[in-house]
């Protein structure tokens, strides 16, 4: 797993990357009540706002971690946004994306670095 400073996790599956938010982020957000996912097939650039996530407290955006194409979104979250609190680093992934150059992940934090980052 790799992690961004925006509290996303990235897991490589073949030539795709699966993206979700960390347990720490889910905990900070509180109960998630609404999720808006990007369109499958959309081309996105790093730091584009691709997912809207609203908790009982506030609305926040999830940014695209890298340039690429959205290949699949986790529609189940739209009906059951609470899954993000139940299993943020497993079933509650947000989207999969295809990226040109997987080596871009090399610069990202690993688990140990992320743990240090969140203190």
């Amino acid at each position, binding site marked *: 797993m790799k992690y961004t400073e925006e509290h996303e996790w990235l897991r490589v599956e073949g030539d795709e990357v699966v993206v979700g938010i960390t347990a720490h982020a889910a905990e900070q957000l*509180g109960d998630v009540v609404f999720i808006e996912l990007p369109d499958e097939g959309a081309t996105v650039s790093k730091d584009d706002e691709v997912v809207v996530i609203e908790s009982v407290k506030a609305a926040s955006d999830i940014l695209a971690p890298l340039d690429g194409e959205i290949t699949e979104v986790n529609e189940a979250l739209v009906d059951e946004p609470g899954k993000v609190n139940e299993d943020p680093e497993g079933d509650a992934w947000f989207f999969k994306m295809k990226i040109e150059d997987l080596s871009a992940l090399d610069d990202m934090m690993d688990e140990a670095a992320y743990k240090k980052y969140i203190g």
Partner: protein
Amino acid sequence: MSDLKRTPLYDLHVALGAKMVPFAGYEMPVQYSLGVMKEHLHCREAAGLFDVSHMGQVILRSENPDVAKAALERLIPQDVLGLGEGRQRYGFFTNAAGGIEDDLMFANRGDHLFVVVNAACKEADVARMREDLEPEVTVKLLENRALLALQGPKAEAVLAEHHPMVSEMRFMDVATVPIAGAECWVSRSGYTGEDGYEISVPVAAAADLARALLEHDDVEAIGLGARDSLRLEAGLCLYGHDIDDTTSPVEAGLTWGIQKARRSSGAREGGFPGADRILSELAKGVSRQRVGLKPDGRAPMREGTALFATEAATDPVGTVTSGGFGPSVNGPVAMGYVETAHSQVGTALFGEVRGKRLPVTVASLPFVAAGFKR
């Protein structure tokens, strides 16, 4: 958070795992380990305990109690003289322009009036009362009492274990009840839409009382997050959001809180700040009104969301003043002000969320039926 005040229950909140946030000058629990959603649902299903000690508790006293009652009527459009002993009423301080300076609860406790005001307004409220009511009435802000609220369908059964007298109380009754060895001033009221009690307790006994109530299996501690979603579903106004110094009580839909005695042709017509505007609006109506708003989709419409009559209209017809997710409704709920022409229940409107016009329907309040024991 060093300049923030703490309530007598601060240590208990921390021990219960609360997440503390600044609110109205106090460090208050926004949620405990259950989280907002479960706390909200627990309160609707069983009973929730809230620390509302940040609110202002004020005693108004005069040698002849009627003097204090008549004096308070100079500041609020409520019938104070007609309120029976052992009864409480909802009210609001108005200003010369007919807006609302704060909302409050006031109780006739025999030889004095007991007034509870919002934390953020309490200094201004006390100053207002001192300026207008003294010296014929003494105005005392109590620093030696905490305030707890026990809310939910199981509240009566829980509190009756401490004193059976609370079961005899009806909605908006007040009484002095010895609970856990302390002299408590109890009212059957609250701000969640549920049956329940508000308990004023001496500071020295507050934490013990809270712990004793929390020992009951049916009681969970509830934070400000769930307090907000509970009152929103109940259609109750939050001062500074749904009502403020520019909104009149008529626009806010609070005319039920202005008794006959203070209205045109009443026994003590007018005589409160802004009476001209308020009595005129009661007779002629208003151009904007507070309404319930039910977003058709799942996206919450939060405070500040602009409301439009159509998907393409350029000028808004209203604004959301409170909005979020209603756990009991299991969907988004909101309230706000709209032009009267668009205020009928069932009117289809659009709220602009992140640049998109999303459908929302004017809905009747409350979103969840009240559980009061009348």
